[in-house]
């Protein structure tokens, strides 16, 4: 028996090792997908059939059950990206790179959905698709930041170097997000009367906030499932690339 001098792996190293990740994540995808489907079935049933109409907005209040979870995910996704960016810069972990890269298009999609459903909701209730209001403007800026980061990922050939540089920019952007939010609120005094994110609080009856909670969980699980799947395909894509390179350099000799 030989002496093993390598440091024993702790539970985190084991989980985050790319090969191990592929093994344990494969088992997680189906349960996550099933939970997502069940939550969506329950949430949509609540949203369409078992929640009251608003006394002013009528049926259009049901847009909220799609709009609010998307808006929540648009911000959650950036927080996840910023945390992965810390992982990239501090521990230089390849899985943090992969998580950051996989989250960017998802964040952009959820932000775009939040803006789109917001516009559809705004038309019948406020009489306009778009208003340069604080919350909308800051969400639009968030979308632009996601798109800029995606463009930057695509501009680099070397994905390892790209990850570190993009992590720097993601963190700078994270510092800037409160500034953006605050400044646009300050800039425009016109503001939507009821803040949507207080909806979970006691300002609403349970008949509305229960479906909202269920839908928020459904969308969050959707995000987790999609994130895991796209992280897996990114790991596999990198492997394929390495194999292609090996074969190409073998052919050259």
């Amino acid at each position, binding site marked *: 028996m030989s002496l093993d001098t390598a440091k024993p792996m702790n539970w985190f190293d084991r989980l985050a090792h790319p090969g191990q990740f592929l093994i344990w994540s494969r088992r997680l995808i189906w349960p996550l997908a099933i939970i997502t489907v069940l939550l969506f079935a329950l949430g949509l049933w609540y949203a369409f059939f078992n929640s009251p109409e608003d006394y002013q907005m009528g049926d259009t209040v049901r847009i909220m059950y799609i709009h609010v979870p998307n808006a929540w995910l648009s911000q959650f996704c950036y927080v996840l990206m910023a945390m992965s960016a810390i992982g990239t810069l501090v521990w230089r972990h390849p899985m943090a790179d992969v998580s950051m890269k996989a989250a960017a298009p998802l964040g952009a999609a959820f932000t775009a959905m939040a803006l789109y459903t917001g516009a559809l909701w705004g038309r019948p209730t406020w009489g306009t698709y778009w208003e340069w209001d604080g919350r909308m403007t800051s969400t639009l800026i968030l979308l632009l930041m996601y798109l800029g980061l995606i463009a930057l990922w695509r501009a680099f050939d070397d994905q390892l170097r790209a990850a570190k540089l993009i992590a720097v920019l993601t963190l700078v952007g994270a510092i800037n997000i409160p500034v953006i939010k605050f400044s646009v609120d300050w*800039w425009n005094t016109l503001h939507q009367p009821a803040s949507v994110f207080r909806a979970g609080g006691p300002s609403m009856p349970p008949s509305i906030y229960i479906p909202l909670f269920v839908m928020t969980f459904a969308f969050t699980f959707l995000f987790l499932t999609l994130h895991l799947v796209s992280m897996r395909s990114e790991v596999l894509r990198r492997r394929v690339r390495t194999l292609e390179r090996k074969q190409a350099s073998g052919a050259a000799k």
Partner: protein
Amino acid sequence: MSAFTALLVRELKLATRASGDVLTLILFFVMVGTITPFAIGPDKVLLARLAPGIIWIAAFLASLLAMDRLFRADHEDGSLLAMRHAALSMEAITLAKLIAHWLTTAVPLIIATPLMAVMLNMDMTIFWRTIVSLALGTPALTAFGAVGAAVTVSLRRGGLIAPVLIMPLSIPILIFGVSAINANAGPGAEMAAMLFLGGISLVATAFVPFAAALALKLTQE
């Protein structure tokens, strides 16, 4: 002469002697002001009302245009790599380059603002406020631009992608810059916006050298 001043002097000499970049930048800035009346019509009252916004957009575009040359030339000819062995830390080098860049790109624009004021029919109080808000806000513009320039320095197409990254980050500067000029924002509102603008500039100048230097170091790994 300390290493910091030596670097500052080098940057200033390079910017003023080696090329006509400073003049070209002023020309670009003034041209944006010249083009706008053609686009929105020569209505003097309307122009006067839009003038602060037009000047800020022109300064914004000019600073985006100039940003690319902040690190690129030094990265391509290897000076940046040589500077890593200098007595100065990379952060101090970035700060020196930032200061020199601000002096050679933002200050000329502020000096050229009177030309814009005449063309856009600005009145005197608005004009002075514009000067002050530009002086307070442009350091932050330069600083955010430096992050974009540092992150994209190794990309050959970096000139196109850096502005796309930096524009959303710079929106608060634009918002406070214009509301510092706007007279009918409410009592005391311009002063508050001015203070915010100065605050953003100070924070950005304090933190950006670390972020940009980190990006430059990671590029050279």
